[in-house]
């Protein structure tokens, strides 16, 4: 018996020294003894696929084609009276009017339908809240929380001596204040100079919300005295 217990103790020590305890860091792919249907041969988001030359599950749209809705709404997309909001209201997506000039204000119509007609687009408190949320995630990194161009990228570039110190724009300059809304929208979508576009990250609605919030920021940093609420005025003095 003592011999068996000694053997068991050795086995336990050997197992622990070989396998360690829970939470042990390892670079090895987890082992699946019975993997059941854990890993199925199906297309997955951002999955790898040896069948295609670029090795991706995700297929880029065919050149020269326009997406007609998503795969989640085939019945709607292929029904008789289907209207594509982006085609009916291109200036909402491009920021330009029919002649190709940037629209000065906000688009008149949105991308949503009521009874087959496009709804009016209105900037509301909700729009500004969305715009602030997105601005603080995507824009403030460079342009700063106040839009003055002093985001963390500028600070780090100053420390590290990177090019971004001179290329990051302040949104409070007279030049950018004078931009029509459509041009601001275009910069958000496609980028400008060294800034890359955020059209892949923000939907058209969110981009217009960001434009609205940038306008609010510009007003906040250059506010005519008569617009300041009296309570705030007292604090300033």
């Amino acid at each position, binding site marked *: 018996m003592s011999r068996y217990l000694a053997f068991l103790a050795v086995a336990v020590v050997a197992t622990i020294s070989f396998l360690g305890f829970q939470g042990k860091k390892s670079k090895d792919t987890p082992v*699946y003894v019975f993997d059941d*249907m854990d890993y199925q041969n199906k297309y997955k988001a951002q999955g790898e696929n040896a069948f295609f030359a670029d090795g991706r599950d995700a297929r880029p749209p065919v050149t020269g084609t326009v997406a007609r809705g998503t795969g989640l709404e085939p019945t709607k997309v292929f029904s008789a009276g289907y209207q594509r909001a982006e085609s009916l209201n291109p200036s909402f997506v491009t920021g330009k009017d029919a002649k190709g000039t940037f629209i000065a204000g906000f688009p008149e119509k949105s991308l949503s339908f009521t009874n087959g007609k496009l709804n009016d687009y209105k900037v509301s408190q909700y729009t500004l809240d969305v715009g602030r949320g997105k601005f603080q995630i995507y824009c403030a*990194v460079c342009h700063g929380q106040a839009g003055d161009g002093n985001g963390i990228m500028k600070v780090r570039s100053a420390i590290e001596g990177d090019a971004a110190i001179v290329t990051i724009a302040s949104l409070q300059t007279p030049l950018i204040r004078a931009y029509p809304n459509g041009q601001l929208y275009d910069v958000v979508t496609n980028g400008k100079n060294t800034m890359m576009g955020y059209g892949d990250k923000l939907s058209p609605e969110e981009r217009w919300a960001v434009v609205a919030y940038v306008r609010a920021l510009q007003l906040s940093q250059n506010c005519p005295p008569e617009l300041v609420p009296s309570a705030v005025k007292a604090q300033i003095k």
Partner: protein
Amino acid sequence: MRKLLDFLNRPATRGNFFARAVNAAPLQILVCLLITAVVVAAAVNEYATNKYLNVGYTPDQPVAFDHSFHAGPDSVLGLDCRYCHNYVDKSSHSNVPTTGTCWNCHSQVKPDSPALALVKKSMETGEAIRWVKVHKVPDYVYFNHAVHVNRGVSCVECHGRIDQQVVVGQQKSLNMSFCLDCHRNPEQFLRPVDKVTDLAYKAASPAAQTADGTKFVHDWKVNPPQSCSGCHR
């Protein structure tokens, strides 16, 4: 023990076919079996679950991206999680960022660094960077990031303090009981939606968490499924 064995092996009063040691054998076998059973049960409990098999999986990535430098309030840059994982609140899948996302900043910041050579190559050729997936659930589990993130379930609940990790490793088991812990008691985990990407957030006290959480469960009509088809199909 020794006394017990001496007693069992006491001299026989008359002749016996078997060696004396045999008297103790049934008891010894029983004790050995019991000890073996306990050891095996402990080993299964320790090793045969995701807590051992998956937790701690920290593979090398093709590009040594350091979350603790880039993301979160304590980091140098303080990026929001969603700057890179930008579809997490819109899609069931939380995307690994495109190379273009890296290049938004790195076209200006250290574009020629050897650490970024693969990113630069990917930017020039369009070839994908083969990031190694760390957090996996089986393919018959349909986890939806957007519905969780938009209802106050923080990244930290499943991914841990990614914002403190230099190399990302799995910190939570992600097994089914782990899911059900929260699905059965959502009020213990929900937080204000604007704190979802603040991984350091903690309610003022456990009581405050329960109070806030109960309010969120009510206000947002949170009703986490506990049926099979809620997650499996």
